[in-house]
Protein backbone atom coordinates (compact mmCIF):
# COMPACT_ATOMS: atom_id res chain seq x y z
CA UNK A 1 0.00 0.00 0.00
CA UNK A 2 2.67 2.45 1.01
CA UNK A 3 4.25 3.10 -2.37
CA UNK A 4 0.86 3.76 -3.93
CA UNK A 5 -0.19 5.95 -1.06
CA UNK A 6 2.84 8.15 -1.21
CA UNK A 7 3.29 8.77 -4.87
CA UNK A 8 5.92 11.48 -4.70
CA UNK A 9 5.10 12.86 -8.10
CA UNK A 10 1.46 13.41 -7.28
CA UNK A 11 2.27 14.85 -3.88
CA UNK A 12 4.43 17.54 -5.43
CA UNK A 13 7.36 17.13 -3.10
CA UNK A 14 10.35 19.49 -3.10
CA UNK A 15 12.07 17.22 -5.62
CA UNK A 16 9.28 18.01 -8.05
CA UNK A 17 9.17 21.68 -7.09
CA UNK A 18 6.39 21.23 -4.53
CA UNK A 19 6.21 22.43 -0.91
CA UNK A 20 8.59 21.36 1.80
CA UNK A 21 7.39 19.13 4.58
CA UNK A 22 6.93 20.46 8.09
CA UNK A 23 6.25 17.10 9.71
CA UNK A 24 7.54 13.72 8.59
CA UNK A 25 5.76 10.70 9.98
CA UNK A 26 7.74 7.46 9.61
CA UNK A 27 6.46 3.94 10.36
CA UNK A 28 4.20 5.26 13.06
CA UNK A 29 2.10 2.86 15.13
CA UNK A 30 -0.13 3.79 18.01
CA UNK A 31 -1.72 1.66 20.73
CA UNK A 32 -4.30 2.13 23.45
CA UNK A 33 -3.32 -0.71 25.77
CA UNK A 34 -3.50 -3.80 23.58
CA UNK A 35 -5.67 -2.15 20.93
CA UNK A 36 -3.71 -0.91 17.94
CA UNK A 37 -5.27 2.34 16.69
CA UNK A 38 -2.79 3.28 13.96
CA UNK A 39 -0.80 1.04 11.63
CA UNK A 40 2.51 1.86 9.92
CA UNK A 41 1.75 5.44 8.97
CA UNK A 42 4.29 7.14 6.77
CA UNK A 43 3.43 10.53 5.38
CA UNK A 44 4.67 14.10 5.12
CA UNK A 45 2.63 17.12 6.28
CA UNK A 46 3.45 20.09 4.09
CA UNK A 47 4.46 23.45 5.45
CA UNK A 48 1.94 26.28 5.06
CA UNK A 49 -0.66 24.06 3.49
CA UNK A 50 -3.89 22.58 4.72
CA UNK A 51 -3.98 18.84 5.09
CA UNK A 52 -7.38 17.22 5.64
CA UNK A 53 -7.82 13.81 7.24
CA UNK A 54 -11.03 12.03 6.33
CA UNK A 55 -12.50 8.64 7.12
CA UNK A 56 -15.31 7.04 9.08
CA UNK A 57 -15.64 7.39 12.88
CA UNK A 58 -13.12 5.32 14.74
CA UNK A 59 -10.72 5.07 11.80
CA UNK A 60 -7.91 6.69 13.78
CA UNK A 61 -7.80 10.13 12.23
CA UNK A 62 -8.37 11.94 15.53
CA UNK A 63 -5.88 9.68 17.27
CA UNK A 64 -3.35 10.56 14.60
CA UNK A 65 -4.08 14.27 15.00
CA UNK A 66 -3.61 14.04 18.76
CA UNK A 67 -0.40 12.10 18.26
CA UNK A 68 1.06 15.14 16.51
CA UNK A 69 1.09 17.23 19.71
CA UNK A 70 1.16 14.27 22.10
CA UNK A 71 -2.23 15.03 23.60
CA UNK A 72 -2.70 11.25 23.70
CA UNK A 73 -0.03 11.12 26.39
CA UNK A 74 -2.70 11.87 28.96
CA UNK A 75 -4.59 8.68 28.06
CA UNK A 76 -3.59 5.82 30.34
CA UNK A 77 -2.03 2.96 28.41
CA UNK A 78 -1.38 4.99 25.25
CA UNK A 79 1.86 4.09 23.49
CA UNK A 80 3.54 5.26 20.29
CA UNK A 81 6.08 3.54 18.06
CA UNK A 82 7.98 5.03 15.16
CA UNK A 83 8.89 8.63 14.49
CA UNK A 84 7.13 11.93 14.07
CA UNK A 85 9.67 14.50 12.96
CA UNK A 86 8.78 18.16 13.44
CA UNK A 87 11.38 20.24 11.62
CA UNK A 88 13.47 17.08 11.60
CA UNK A 89 13.28 16.53 15.38
CA UNK A 90 11.49 13.46 16.70
CA UNK A 91 8.72 14.68 19.00
CA UNK A 92 8.66 11.29 20.75
CA UNK A 93 12.34 11.49 21.67
CA UNK A 94 12.90 11.17 25.43
CA UNK A 95 14.35 14.66 25.88
CA UNK A 96 11.37 16.46 24.31
CA UNK A 97 9.53 18.93 26.54
CA UNK A 98 5.86 18.30 25.77
CA UNK A 99 4.75 21.74 26.95
CA UNK A 100 7.18 23.26 24.45
CA UNK A 101 5.92 20.89 21.74
CA UNK A 102 2.29 21.83 22.43
CA UNK A 103 3.11 25.50 22.23
CA UNK A 104 4.56 24.85 18.76
CA UNK A 105 1.76 22.52 17.68
CA UNK A 106 -1.50 24.11 18.75
CA UNK A 107 -4.95 22.57 18.73
CA UNK A 108 -8.54 23.61 18.07
CA UNK A 109 -11.21 21.25 19.28
CA UNK A 110 -14.50 19.92 18.02
CA UNK A 111 -16.79 21.80 20.35
CA UNK A 112 -16.06 25.50 20.87
CA UNK A 113 -14.61 25.37 24.37
CA UNK A 114 -13.60 28.78 25.67
CA UNK A 115 -12.73 28.97 29.35
CA UNK A 116 -15.57 30.51 31.41
CA UNK A 117 -13.58 33.72 31.64
CA UNK A 118 -13.41 37.01 29.78
CA UNK A 119 -12.62 37.14 26.07
CA UNK A 120 -9.34 38.86 26.91
CA UNK A 121 -8.30 36.29 29.52
CA UNK A 122 -9.05 33.44 27.15
CA UNK A 123 -6.60 34.74 24.57
CA UNK A 124 -4.08 35.90 27.19
CA UNK A 125 -3.99 32.57 29.03
CA UNK A 126 -1.43 30.91 26.76
CA UNK A 127 1.08 33.77 26.67
CA UNK A 128 0.68 34.18 30.43
CA UNK A 129 1.47 30.59 31.33
CA UNK A 130 4.36 30.57 28.89
CA UNK A 131 5.74 33.35 31.04
CA UNK A 132 6.03 35.92 28.33
CA UNK A 133 4.84 39.35 28.22
CA UNK A 134 4.36 42.59 30.05
CA UNK A 135 0.87 44.05 30.10
CA UNK A 136 1.34 46.20 27.00
CA UNK A 137 2.87 43.39 24.95
CA UNK A 138 0.11 41.11 26.14
CA UNK A 139 -2.55 43.54 24.96
CA UNK A 140 -0.86 43.59 21.56
CA UNK A 141 -0.74 39.81 21.35
CA UNK A 142 -4.42 39.61 22.27
CA UNK A 143 -5.37 42.17 19.65
CA UNK A 144 -3.31 40.65 16.86
CA UNK A 145 -4.49 37.13 17.68
CA UNK A 146 -8.14 38.20 17.65
CA UNK A 147 -7.54 40.11 14.43
CA UNK A 148 -5.88 37.09 12.81
CA UNK A 149 -8.86 35.00 13.86
CA UNK A 150 -11.21 37.55 12.24
CA UNK A 151 -12.90 38.30 15.55
CA UNK A 152 -11.36 41.60 16.64
CA UNK A 153 -13.97 43.88 15.11
CA UNK A 154 -16.79 41.97 16.74
CA UNK A 155 -15.34 41.91 20.25
CA UNK A 156 -12.98 44.88 20.58
CA UNK A 157 -15.53 46.84 22.66
CA UNK A 158 -16.25 44.03 25.08
CA UNK A 159 -13.00 42.24 25.78
CA UNK A 160 -14.00 42.00 29.45
CA UNK A 161 -17.26 40.24 28.68
CA UNK A 162 -17.49 36.52 29.37
CA UNK A 163 -16.45 34.41 26.41
CA UNK A 164 -19.64 32.44 26.92
CA UNK A 165 -21.71 35.42 25.73
CA UNK A 166 -20.40 34.87 22.19
CA UNK A 167 -22.30 32.74 19.69
CA UNK A 168 -20.84 29.32 18.81
CA UNK A 169 -19.18 30.56 15.62
CA UNK A 170 -17.54 33.43 17.47
CA UNK A 171 -16.54 31.10 20.28
CA UNK A 172 -14.77 28.82 17.83
CA UNK A 173 -12.91 31.76 16.30
CA UNK A 174 -12.01 32.81 19.86
CA UNK A 175 -10.57 29.34 20.41
CA UNK A 176 -8.56 29.78 17.22
CA UNK A 177 -7.33 33.17 18.47
CA UNK A 178 -6.40 31.55 21.78
CA UNK A 179 -4.32 29.01 19.89
CA UNK A 180 -2.70 31.69 17.70
CA UNK A 181 -1.73 33.70 20.79
CA UNK A 182 1.03 31.25 21.70
CA UNK A 183 2.53 31.62 18.20
CA UNK A 184 2.37 28.00 17.08
CA UNK A 185 3.95 26.66 13.90
CA UNK A 186 1.34 24.00 13.27
CA UNK A 187 -2.39 24.14 14.04
CA UNK A 188 -4.33 20.92 14.48
CA UNK A 189 -8.09 21.16 14.07
CA UNK A 190 -10.30 18.33 15.23
CA UNK A 191 -13.60 18.68 13.36
CA UNK A 192 -13.65 22.40 14.16
CA UNK A 193 -16.94 23.05 12.36
CA UNK A 194 -19.02 20.08 13.41
CA UNK A 195 -20.85 22.15 16.04
CA UNK A 196 -21.34 25.18 13.78
CA UNK A 197 -24.02 26.27 11.35
CA UNK A 198 -23.18 26.55 7.61
CA UNK A 199 -22.45 30.29 7.70
CA UNK A 200 -20.12 30.01 10.68
CA UNK A 201 -18.53 27.00 8.99
CA UNK A 202 -17.69 29.02 5.88
CA UNK A 203 -16.28 31.75 8.12
CA UNK A 204 -13.90 29.27 9.73
CA UNK A 205 -12.92 27.80 6.35
CA UNK A 206 -12.09 31.26 5.02
CA UNK A 207 -10.04 31.84 8.10
CA UNK A 208 -8.16 28.57 7.65
CA UNK A 209 -7.35 29.53 4.11
CA UNK A 210 -5.89 32.85 5.22
CA UNK A 211 -4.01 31.28 8.14
CA UNK A 212 -2.42 28.72 5.84
CA UNK A 213 -0.26 31.50 4.44
CA UNK A 214 1.58 31.48 7.77
CA UNK A 215 0.75 28.22 9.47
CA UNK A 216 0.76 24.53 8.69
CA UNK A 217 -2.77 23.28 9.27
CA UNK A 218 -4.03 19.74 9.76
CA UNK A 219 -7.78 19.30 9.95
CA UNK A 220 -9.84 16.24 10.76
CA UNK A 221 -13.26 16.40 9.20
CA UNK A 222 -16.31 14.23 8.70
CA UNK A 223 -17.51 16.54 6.01
CA UNK A 224 -16.13 15.56 2.62
CA UNK A 225 -17.29 18.76 0.96
CA UNK A 226 -15.27 20.60 3.55
CA UNK A 227 -12.17 18.56 2.84
CA UNK A 228 -12.67 19.09 -0.90
CA UNK A 229 -13.28 22.84 -0.50
CA UNK A 230 -10.81 23.79 2.13
CA UNK A 231 -7.72 21.59 1.91
CA UNK A 232 -4.65 21.20 -0.28
CA UNK A 233 -3.92 17.59 0.61
CA UNK A 234 -6.24 14.88 1.79
CA UNK A 235 -5.49 11.64 3.58
CA UNK A 236 -8.12 8.91 3.75
CA UNK A 237 -7.97 6.73 6.87
CA UNK A 238 -9.62 3.34 7.18
CA UNK A 239 -9.36 1.11 10.25
CA UNK A 240 -6.19 2.77 11.48
CA UNK A 241 -4.44 2.71 8.11
CA UNK A 242 -3.74 5.47 5.67
CA UNK A 243 -5.37 4.21 2.47
CA UNK A 244 -4.64 7.10 0.17
CA UNK A 245 -2.92 10.47 0.53
CA UNK A 246 -2.79 12.91 -2.37
CA UNK A 247 -3.45 16.40 -3.50
CA UNK A 248 -7.09 17.12 -2.66
CA UNK A 249 -8.46 17.76 -6.17
CA UNK A 250 -6.88 14.57 -7.45
CA UNK A 251 -8.00 12.42 -4.56
CA UNK A 252 -11.58 13.49 -5.02
CA UNK A 253 -11.55 13.46 -8.84
CA UNK A 254 -9.63 10.29 -9.50
CA UNK A 255 -9.21 8.18 -6.37
CA UNK A 256 -6.83 5.31 -6.94
CA UNK A 257 -8.06 2.97 -4.29
CA UNK A 258 -11.45 1.28 -4.51
CA UNK A 259 -12.01 1.96 -0.77
CA UNK A 260 -11.41 5.66 -1.23
CA UNK A 261 -13.77 5.87 -4.10
CA UNK A 262 -16.45 3.95 -2.22
CA UNK A 263 -16.08 6.24 0.78
CA UNK A 264 -16.06 9.59 -1.00
CA UNK A 265 -18.98 8.60 -3.17
CA UNK A 266 -20.90 7.60 -0.05
CA UNK A 267 -21.07 3.88 -0.74
CA UNK A 268 -18.86 2.90 2.17
CA UNK A 269 -18.48 4.15 5.71
Amino acid sequence: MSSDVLDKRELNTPETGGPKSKIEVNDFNFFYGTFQALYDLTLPIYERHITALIGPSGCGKSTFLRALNRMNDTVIGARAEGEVLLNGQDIYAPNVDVTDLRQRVGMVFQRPNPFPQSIYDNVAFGPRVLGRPKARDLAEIVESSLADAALWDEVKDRLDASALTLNPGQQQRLCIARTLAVRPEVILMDEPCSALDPVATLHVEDLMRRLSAQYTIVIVTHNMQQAARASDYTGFFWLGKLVEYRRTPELFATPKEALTEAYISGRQG
Partner: protein
Amino acid sequence: MTRQQTNRLAKIAISLVAALVVLPTVFVILYVVYNGIGVISWEFLFTAPRSGMREGGIWPALLGTVFLTFGTAIAAFPLAIATAIYLAEYAGDNRLTRWVRLAIVNLAGIPSIVYGLFGLGAFVLFLNLGTSIVAGSLTLGLMTLPVVISTAEEALLAVPQEFRTVSLSLGATRWQTIRHQVLPHALPGIITGIILGLGRAAGETAPILFTVAAFYLPELPRSIFDQTMALPYHLYVISTQVPGMPLSLQYGTALVLLLVVLSLTLVATVLRTRMRRRRQW
Protein backbone atom coordinates in the same frame (compact mmCIF):
# COMPACT_ATOMS: atom_id res chain seq x y z
CA MET B 1 -57.63 -3.66 45.06
CA THR B 2 -56.54 -2.96 41.52
CA ARG B 3 -52.90 -2.57 40.53
CA GLN B 4 -53.42 1.16 40.19
CA GLN B 5 -54.84 1.45 43.69
CA THR B 6 -51.95 -0.52 45.14
CA ASN B 7 -49.62 1.73 43.23
CA ARG B 8 -51.14 4.87 44.71
CA LEU B 9 -51.23 3.39 48.20
CA ALA B 10 -47.56 2.42 47.97
CA LYS B 11 -46.60 5.93 47.00
CA ILE B 12 -48.57 7.47 49.87
CA ALA B 13 -47.21 5.01 52.42
CA ILE B 14 -43.61 5.49 51.31
CA SER B 15 -43.94 9.27 51.35
CA LEU B 16 -45.39 9.20 54.86
CA VAL B 17 -42.57 7.05 56.18
CA ALA B 18 -40.03 9.32 54.51
CA ALA B 19 -41.67 12.32 56.15
CA LEU B 20 -41.08 10.67 59.54
CA VAL B 21 -37.37 11.33 59.09
CA VAL B 22 -37.99 15.03 59.36
CA LEU B 23 -39.75 14.68 62.71
CA PRO B 24 -36.83 13.84 65.01
CA THR B 25 -34.74 16.69 63.57
CA VAL B 26 -37.51 19.22 64.02
CA PHE B 27 -38.38 17.82 67.43
CA VAL B 28 -34.82 17.94 68.76
CA ILE B 29 -34.29 21.48 67.54
CA LEU B 30 -37.62 22.74 68.88
CA TYR B 31 -37.09 20.99 72.20
CA VAL B 32 -33.67 22.54 72.70
CA VAL B 33 -34.85 25.96 71.57
CA TYR B 34 -37.90 25.83 73.81
CA ASN B 35 -35.94 24.86 76.90
CA GLY B 36 -32.86 26.93 76.25
CA ILE B 37 -34.03 30.21 74.77
CA GLY B 38 -34.92 31.58 78.22
CA VAL B 39 -31.33 31.87 79.46
CA ILE B 40 -29.86 33.31 76.27
CA SER B 41 -28.76 36.82 77.06
CA TRP B 42 -25.81 39.13 76.53
CA GLU B 43 -24.53 38.09 79.93
CA PHE B 44 -24.92 34.35 79.24
CA LEU B 45 -23.01 34.58 75.97
CA PHE B 46 -20.25 36.97 76.96
CA THR B 47 -19.34 36.33 80.59
CA ALA B 48 -17.45 33.54 82.27
CA PRO B 49 -19.17 30.89 84.44
CA ARG B 50 -19.33 31.62 88.17
CA SER B 51 -20.05 29.73 91.38
CA GLY B 52 -18.71 26.38 90.18
CA MET B 53 -20.41 26.96 86.81
CA ARG B 54 -23.87 27.05 88.36
CA GLU B 55 -24.19 30.72 87.41
CA GLY B 56 -22.79 33.09 84.81
CA GLY B 57 -22.19 32.45 81.13
CA ILE B 58 -20.32 30.38 78.61
CA TRP B 59 -17.98 32.93 77.00
CA PRO B 60 -14.69 31.02 77.52
CA ALA B 61 -16.26 27.85 76.09
CA LEU B 62 -17.83 29.66 73.16
CA LEU B 63 -14.60 31.45 72.31
CA GLY B 64 -12.65 28.22 72.78
CA THR B 65 -14.86 26.48 70.25
CA VAL B 66 -14.34 29.33 67.79
CA PHE B 67 -10.54 29.07 68.24
CA LEU B 68 -10.64 25.31 67.84
CA THR B 69 -12.75 25.61 64.69
CA PHE B 70 -10.24 27.99 63.13
CA GLY B 71 -7.36 25.82 64.30
CA THR B 72 -9.00 22.77 62.76
CA ALA B 73 -9.43 24.59 59.46
CA ILE B 74 -5.78 25.61 59.43
CA ALA B 75 -4.63 22.11 60.34
CA ALA B 76 -6.84 20.25 57.88
CA PHE B 77 -6.81 22.59 54.89
CA PRO B 78 -3.32 22.09 53.42
CA LEU B 79 -3.27 18.34 53.94
CA ALA B 80 -6.76 17.87 52.57
CA ILE B 81 -6.24 20.08 49.53
CA ALA B 82 -2.94 18.46 48.64
CA THR B 83 -4.39 14.99 49.04
CA ALA B 84 -7.49 15.82 47.01
CA ILE B 85 -5.40 17.34 44.22
CA TYR B 86 -3.17 14.29 44.22
CA LEU B 87 -6.16 11.95 44.00
CA ALA B 88 -8.12 13.93 41.42
CA GLU B 89 -5.32 15.17 39.19
CA TYR B 90 -2.21 13.03 39.54
CA ALA B 91 -3.13 9.66 41.00
CA GLY B 92 -2.33 6.80 38.73
CA ASP B 93 -3.17 3.22 39.50
CA ASN B 94 -0.21 2.69 41.79
CA ARG B 95 0.64 1.62 45.29
CA LEU B 96 0.73 5.15 46.71
CA THR B 97 -2.79 5.85 45.45
CA ARG B 98 -4.10 2.62 46.95
CA TRP B 99 -2.47 3.40 50.29
CA VAL B 100 -3.85 6.92 50.35
CA ARG B 101 -7.38 5.73 49.55
CA LEU B 102 -7.17 2.95 52.11
CA ALA B 103 -5.93 5.41 54.74
CA ILE B 104 -8.83 7.79 54.06
CA VAL B 105 -11.45 5.05 54.31
CA ASN B 106 -9.92 3.92 57.58
CA LEU B 107 -9.66 7.44 58.99
CA ALA B 108 -13.37 7.88 58.31
CA GLY B 109 -14.17 4.73 60.24
CA ILE B 110 -12.18 5.45 63.41
CA PRO B 111 -14.36 6.24 66.45
CA SER B 112 -13.86 9.78 67.69
CA ILE B 113 -12.67 8.70 71.15
CA VAL B 114 -9.80 6.86 69.44
CA TYR B 115 -8.83 10.14 67.78
CA GLY B 116 -8.80 11.65 71.24
CA LEU B 117 -6.45 8.97 72.54
CA PHE B 118 -4.27 9.24 69.44
CA GLY B 119 -4.10 13.01 69.90
CA LEU B 120 -3.07 12.53 73.51
CA GLY B 121 -0.32 10.11 72.55
CA ALA B 122 0.93 11.80 69.40
CA PHE B 123 0.44 15.54 69.88
CA VAL B 124 0.14 16.13 73.64
CA LEU B 125 2.83 13.71 74.79
CA PHE B 126 5.08 12.68 71.89
CA LEU B 127 5.29 16.09 70.21
CA ASN B 128 5.17 17.60 73.67
CA LEU B 129 2.57 20.19 72.70
CA GLY B 130 0.82 19.71 76.03
CA THR B 131 -2.91 19.95 76.52
CA SER B 132 -3.35 22.88 74.19
CA ILE B 133 -5.31 24.48 71.39
CA VAL B 134 -2.65 23.28 68.93
CA ALA B 135 -2.95 19.68 70.03
CA GLY B 136 -6.76 19.84 69.96
CA SER B 137 -6.83 21.49 66.54
CA LEU B 138 -4.50 18.90 65.07
CA THR B 139 -6.61 16.09 66.49
CA LEU B 140 -9.85 17.59 65.19
CA GLY B 141 -8.16 18.39 61.86
CA LEU B 142 -7.12 14.78 61.44
CA MET B 143 -10.66 13.68 62.19
CA THR B 144 -12.19 15.97 59.56
CA LEU B 145 -9.70 14.98 56.83
CA PRO B 146 -11.81 12.22 55.23
CA VAL B 147 -14.87 14.45 54.77
CA VAL B 148 -12.86 17.36 53.45
CA ILE B 149 -10.74 15.23 51.13
CA SER B 150 -13.68 13.46 49.56
CA THR B 151 -15.72 16.63 49.01
CA ALA B 152 -12.65 18.42 47.63
CA GLU B 153 -11.90 15.52 45.29
CA GLU B 154 -15.49 15.56 44.05
CA ALA B 155 -15.28 19.31 43.47
CA LEU B 156 -12.10 18.88 41.44
CA LEU B 157 -13.51 16.03 39.38
CA ALA B 158 -16.61 18.11 38.62
CA VAL B 159 -14.48 20.59 36.67
CA PRO B 160 -14.89 19.63 33.00
CA GLN B 161 -12.01 17.58 31.59
CA GLU B 162 -12.05 19.90 28.62
CA PHE B 163 -10.55 22.79 30.62
CA ARG B 164 -7.54 20.65 31.40
CA THR B 165 -7.19 19.42 27.83
CA VAL B 166 -7.33 22.92 26.37
CA SER B 167 -4.92 24.30 28.93
CA LEU B 168 -2.39 21.53 28.27
CA SER B 169 -2.81 21.98 24.52
CA LEU B 170 -1.72 25.60 24.89
CA GLY B 171 1.56 24.53 26.44
CA ALA B 172 0.62 24.99 30.10
CA THR B 173 2.24 22.61 32.54
CA ARG B 174 0.20 20.24 34.65
CA TRP B 175 0.55 22.49 37.68
CA GLN B 176 -0.35 25.67 35.75
CA THR B 177 -3.42 23.87 34.48
CA ILE B 178 -4.46 22.86 37.98
CA ARG B 179 -3.62 26.26 39.45
CA HIS B 180 -5.37 28.41 36.83
CA GLN B 181 -8.07 26.31 35.18
CA VAL B 182 -9.09 23.71 37.75
CA LEU B 183 -8.68 25.03 41.30
CA PRO B 184 -10.57 28.33 40.79
CA HIS B 185 -13.62 26.43 39.58
CA ALA B 186 -13.37 23.82 42.33
CA LEU B 187 -12.70 26.25 45.16
CA PRO B 188 -16.32 26.92 46.22
CA GLY B 189 -16.93 23.17 46.40
CA ILE B 190 -13.75 22.65 48.38
CA ILE B 191 -14.67 25.40 50.82
CA THR B 192 -18.12 23.85 51.25
CA GLY B 193 -16.46 20.59 52.18
CA ILE B 194 -14.20 22.26 54.70
CA ILE B 195 -17.09 24.06 56.37
CA LEU B 196 -19.08 20.83 56.61
CA GLY B 197 -16.06 19.18 58.18
CA LEU B 198 -15.72 22.06 60.63
CA GLY B 199 -19.38 21.77 61.53
CA ARG B 200 -18.71 18.25 62.65
CA ALA B 201 -15.48 19.14 64.42
CA ALA B 202 -17.08 22.01 66.35
CA GLY B 203 -19.57 19.66 67.94
CA GLU B 204 -17.20 16.82 68.90
CA THR B 205 -16.37 16.06 72.51
CA ALA B 206 -14.23 12.95 72.49
CA PRO B 207 -11.28 14.22 70.40
CA ILE B 208 -10.81 17.28 72.61
CA LEU B 209 -11.32 15.45 75.90
CA PHE B 210 -7.63 14.68 76.49
CA THR B 211 -6.04 17.11 74.08
CA VAL B 212 -7.28 20.59 74.89
CA ALA B 213 -10.52 20.89 76.82
CA ALA B 214 -10.41 22.39 80.30
CA PHE B 215 -12.95 21.35 82.91
CA TYR B 216 -13.31 24.81 84.36
CA LEU B 217 -11.10 27.65 83.25
CA PRO B 218 -12.73 31.06 83.53
CA GLU B 219 -9.69 32.88 82.05
CA LEU B 220 -9.35 33.06 78.32
CA PRO B 221 -6.39 31.33 76.65
CA ARG B 222 -3.43 33.61 75.98
CA SER B 223 -1.67 31.54 73.37
CA ILE B 224 -2.26 28.54 71.17
CA PHE B 225 -0.32 26.47 73.68
CA ASP B 226 -2.90 27.06 76.40
CA GLN B 227 -5.85 24.92 77.33
CA THR B 228 -9.28 26.23 76.66
CA MET B 229 -12.84 25.41 77.53
CA ALA B 230 -15.00 24.30 74.62
CA LEU B 231 -18.77 24.12 74.20
CA PRO B 232 -19.32 20.38 73.68
CA TYR B 233 -17.09 19.41 76.60
CA HIS B 234 -18.57 22.17 78.77
CA LEU B 235 -22.02 20.81 78.02
CA TYR B 236 -20.90 17.32 78.96
CA VAL B 237 -19.37 18.61 82.20
CA ILE B 238 -22.34 20.67 83.34
CA SER B 239 -24.76 17.88 82.42
CA THR B 240 -23.00 15.06 84.24
CA GLN B 241 -20.25 16.28 86.54
CA VAL B 242 -21.75 19.22 88.45
CA PRO B 243 -24.42 18.42 91.01
CA GLY B 244 -27.23 20.96 91.41
CA MET B 245 -26.70 22.41 87.95
CA PRO B 246 -29.73 24.44 86.73
CA LEU B 247 -31.32 22.65 83.74
CA SER B 248 -31.88 25.92 81.92
CA LEU B 249 -28.12 26.58 81.71
CA GLN B 250 -27.60 23.14 80.21
CA TYR B 251 -30.24 23.71 77.57
CA GLY B 252 -28.95 27.22 76.90
CA THR B 253 -25.48 25.79 76.28
CA ALA B 254 -26.90 23.06 74.06
CA LEU B 255 -28.80 25.69 72.08
CA VAL B 256 -25.67 27.77 71.46
CA LEU B 257 -23.71 24.68 70.39
CA LEU B 258 -26.53 23.70 68.07
CA LEU B 259 -26.60 27.19 66.56
CA VAL B 260 -22.84 27.17 65.97
CA VAL B 261 -23.00 23.84 64.17
CA LEU B 262 -26.17 24.61 62.23
CA SER B 263 -24.90 28.00 61.10
CA LEU B 264 -21.75 26.36 59.70
CA THR B 265 -23.90 23.86 57.82
CA LEU B 266 -26.14 26.66 56.61
CA VAL B 267 -23.18 28.64 55.28
CA ALA B 268 -21.97 25.54 53.45
CA THR B 269 -25.40 24.92 51.94
CA VAL B 270 -25.86 28.51 50.80
CA LEU B 271 -22.40 28.51 49.27
CA ARG B 272 -23.09 25.30 47.40
CA THR B 273 -26.41 26.54 46.07
CA ARG B 274 -24.90 29.81 44.89
CA MET B 275 -22.05 27.98 43.27
CA ARG B 276 -24.41 25.66 41.39
CA ARG B 277 -26.41 28.62 40.15
CA ARG B 278 -23.33 30.50 38.99
CA ARG B 279 -21.77 27.52 37.25
CA GLN B 280 -21.59 28.20 33.55
CA TRP B 281 -20.91 24.86 31.99
